[in-house]
């Protein structure tokens, strides 16, 4: 059963600005990962969920979930992944009243908002730049 984290990963892949690949075909290489940093020397994006705030409940038993998302961009690009982080922010920031995934509309996303600008964490051991950005997610389960 898919989670909201997978919704976000797929939503990033569906962007027209070529943010990354979450569900690679036989000829593509995956670049968007969930929860685990891959052991590759190339550029990649990792999405980490974290606690956020406690949920709220409505009278008809819907729960408003408010997790948070930490996006780590590790990049061999000259700017260290800054533009990639900005592209991700443009894709996610202020997403509102949107059902994801687009195929099954399992969750209704009330709002996704960035919690700040991409933060540079310096270079990793292989010289790749690292940027991290955090987002507040608000959604209701539709199933």
């Amino acid at each position, binding site marked *: 059963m898919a989670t909201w984290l997978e919704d976000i990963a797929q939503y990033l892949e569906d962007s027209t600005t070529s943010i990354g690949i979450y569900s690679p075909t036989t000829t593509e290489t995956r670049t968007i990962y969930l929860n685990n940093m891959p052991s590759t020397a190339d550029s990649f994006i990792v999405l980490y969920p974290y606690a956020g705030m406690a949920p709220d409940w409505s009278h008809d038993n819907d729960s408003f979930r408010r997790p948070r998302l930490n996006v780590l961009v590790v990049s061999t690009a000259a700017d260290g992944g800054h533009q990639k982080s900005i592209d991700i922010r443009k894709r996610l920031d202020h997403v509102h009243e949107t059902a994801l995934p687009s195929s099954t509309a399992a969750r209704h996303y009330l709002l996704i908002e960035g919690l700040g600008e991409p933060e540079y964490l310096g270079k990793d051991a292989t010289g790749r730049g690292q940027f991290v950005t*955090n987002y507040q997610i608000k959604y209701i389960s539709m199933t």
Partner: protein
Amino acid sequence: MTASKAISVKLEGTATARANLRVIAEKLPRQTRQAMVEQTDDVRIESQEECPYDYNNPHNDGSPHLRDTAKTGIDEDTDEYISTYVSYDTPYAVYQHEILEYNHLFPTKAKFLEDPANRHARTWIPDLLRKVQGVLENQTFIKLSADTEIARDYNAWQGAHYSALAGKDTSLIGHLGGRFI
């Protein structure tokens, strides 16, 4: 200047409560300020419990452990606005806070400041009002241990300190005497 990281908490859906709180802050500014600081201190204490601790580095150079750099303070204090902060201040604070890939010994973890702040955000205003009430009733000192326990621990430390000094030539101990014996 070493890097530092501060977390801000944004409260939503509390327009009416904030309006009432503004009235209280206007009429009781000193008490509200103290209650805000005490409440922020609660976040700091929880945060320090979750802050990663480098057991492999005794910091013999005198530099502080990350946990020990936690600080609470007032950021802004005007007629319209009281802003408090919790901050950590080591060059590696932001890495420990933002990189969720690192392994940490339970209960320490990444997001050691943001998560406690988020936990408190939900009940921040009612908790603050209770603390203002506590300040008005002069219950402002938070006792973490009974007086007898505090005296016992202090005496034990003092005894150990003077035992370490016994028989040593103290003439060469400078201003750091007592820390690096």
